[in-house]
């Protein structure tokens, strides 16, 4: 794996801040894409955020929305405006590395599967509360219909001023979130050797997704100039006895490719990743959600930060990756004060003993929060990092 000096410098900037992927889609974006009527409140929302974020030419968007319902070209243009707003949102709060809040995608799993060969949809399954995702079954040979982030990346690259990191749903998560109607269809409960055949089939499924879907997609993005690719694996630790398959799928996806690769993990028992991820030597950064498990009280000691007790295990990985430390709970409207962010950061730096190995991030994508809440959370995250830098004597 070849990594340029500039890329290494970017990764090791002390307390670098970035987002994790998704932001909520504004009503005007959702309605326009669905062909639904746009109301005055939606126009005002586009206008207000356009001004607030300093989006150049945002009145053009308002005029476009006034013409709704839109034809396919108009809908595509609205989605691109969504990207402009997403990039502007993340740049305005002051993050070091941004993307577009995944404004042009449907959802992290759905978007990937919709552009893949070999899958059929099987309806909505609940993730939690009133949140759901569309679930597909693998039914045929897996393939990449079309590189599904190229258009988006080319656009974002042209409108962003900050460094970019492209989020991509990983092979293990796509497999784990899908039904399998191709690789293992044996329902005979008493059949000899069933567990081994089930596991072998599972491995074939996961690695086919890595080889035939994810890797060509990564190659296409690198060809367009993408330098930092974040493999999102929220499903990564769901099955502890498959950690080896998760690691193998990551390695098969990225091995020999010329870019920086990181992985996002969230809402898991992170202990389960060890020692399995010792084999993920090509992973330069782990972006991990912790705030969801943490106390809201201030303090930098181990007892004060129960959500972060697994940090030493990431610190001690032999290939010394950077850790993106989640400091914002994305499942609540509670806006973490800068002081709380600061304490979480200081605790993490204390555990690692090196601020260059700590990045500061939300626990996960902020798409379940309103833009107003997400904005305030991220603003406070940046402010908290500044506080931490002051305390640490960093510029």
């Amino acid at each position, binding site marked *: 794996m070849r990594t340029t000096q500039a890329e290494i410098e970017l990764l090791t900037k002390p307390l670098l801040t970035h987002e994790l992927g998704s932001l909520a889609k504004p009503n005007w974006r959702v309605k326009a894409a669905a062909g639904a009527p746009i109301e005055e409140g939606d126009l005002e929302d586009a206008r207000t955020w356009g001004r607030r974020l300093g989006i150049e030419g945002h009145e053009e968007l308002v005029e476009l929305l006034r013409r709704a319902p839109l034809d396919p070209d108009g809908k595509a243009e609205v989605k691109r405006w969504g990207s402009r707003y997403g990039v502007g949102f993340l740049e305005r709060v002051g993050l070091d590395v941004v993307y577009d809040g995944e404004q042009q995608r449907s959802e992290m799993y759905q978007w990937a599967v919709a552009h893949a060969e070999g899958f059929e949809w099987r309806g*909505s399954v609940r993730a939690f*509360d009133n949140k*759901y995702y569309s679930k597909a079954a693998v039914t045929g040979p897996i393939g990449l219909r079309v590189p599904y982030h190229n258009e988006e990346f080319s656009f974002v690259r042209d409108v962003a001023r900050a460094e970019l990191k492209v989020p991509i749903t990983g092979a293990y998560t796509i497999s784990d979130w899908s039904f399998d109607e191709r690789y293992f269809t044996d*329902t005979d409960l*008493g059949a000899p050797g069933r567990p081994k055949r089930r596991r072998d089939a599972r491995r074939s499924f996961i690695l086919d997704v890595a080889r035939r879907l994810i890797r060509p997609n990564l190659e296409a993005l690198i060809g367009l100039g993408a330098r930092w690719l974040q493999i999102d694996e929220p499903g990564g630790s*769901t099955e502890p006895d498959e950690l080896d398959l998760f690691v193998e799928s990551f390695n098969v996806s990225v091995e020999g490719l010329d870019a920086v690769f990181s992985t996002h993990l969230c809402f898991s028992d992170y202990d389960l990743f060890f020692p399995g991820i010792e084999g993920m030597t090509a992973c330069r950064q782990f972006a991990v959600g912790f705030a969801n498990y943490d106390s809201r009280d201030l303090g930098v000691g181990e007892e004060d930060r129960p959500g972060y007790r697994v940090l030493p295990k990431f610190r001690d990985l032999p290939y010394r990756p950077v850790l993106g430390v989640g400091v914002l709970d994305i499942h609540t409207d509670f806006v973490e004060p800068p002081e709380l962010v600061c304490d979480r950061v200081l605790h993490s730096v204390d555990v690692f003993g090196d601020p260059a190995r700590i990045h500061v991030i939300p626990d996960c994508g902020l798409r379940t929060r309103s833009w107003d809440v997400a904005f305030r959370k991220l603003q406070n995250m940046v402010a908290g990092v500044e506080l931490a830098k002051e305390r640490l004597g960093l510029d």
Partner: protein
Amino acid sequence: MTPPVQSFVAAYQHGIYPRSEAVVQATRDLERGRTDPAAVDEAFRSDREAFLALQRRAGLDYLSDGLLRWQDLFRPLVDGTPTLEARVLVRWFDNNSFFRAPEGAETPRLSELPAWVLEDGIPEPRVGSLPSPYLFSRVALARADRDDLMAGVARDVLAPAARRMSDAGFGLIHLEEPWLAYAGIDDAAWDRFEEAVGAVREAATGATVVLHTYYGDVAPHADRLRRLPVDAVGVDFVETDLEALPTPWETGLVAGCLDGRSSVLEDAAAVAAFVRRAVDRLEPTSLYLTSGSDLELAGPEVAPRKVEVLGEVAREVRGETA
């Protein structure tokens, strides 16, 4: 005609059943301010009626409301217990699904169950599902000793809930126990677990109480498990090898015989043959047929077909098919 293999065989669908696309849309719309609660209620009512009709068509013996309104397996209990809250999102075992972990007082006490838990419009005989006390105590965010919490939750939350369900006409109370199969249990916890289950059993006078394990191989714990003070103990045969279970079973058997997380449909005759083998080997005192895990994660397209297969399996096992 195949002769019946068991004097008492009953089939039912346990746990949370998937919401239809109409309810998915309605609940999404409600959160985004695009519809009102009445429209959501109507969507739930329609789902409940459809699920009831499905269970009747399938010939199931106990009828469920599918826990369609439950946000997770613990939420109505948490909502009915003033000192508990549901905040932190935690992964539901090895699934792309999450629940909000109960947290709060070390001695929670159920005040009331939401009315829709008991008055669900489902005719008798009804089946209701509750978390097992062991599961509840292990998923809760608590500083208290887990076994003390288990005893307290059983006595003051689950037993009162089971009593109210029994009083409301539920004929079968199904305790969901995936934790034991997935994560195991310390030897030291068994006595308290037995007491806790016994407290729930005792409260539900007039109802059959079963405890069902899934999401893991329960064979290592089966010897003790079968002696729990319940009417039947459940095994997920998707994960547990029949040959590894002790014989005789000495109690009723809940045979989890369909894969609740796979979209591949089982062949009813083959499953029935497996169940007969299980009965021959284990000699249970009664037999209940259901899915291994519940069907929520099978989704609304696959789950109804699984329920139909379950009904076919029951008919095959009873020898009702030619």
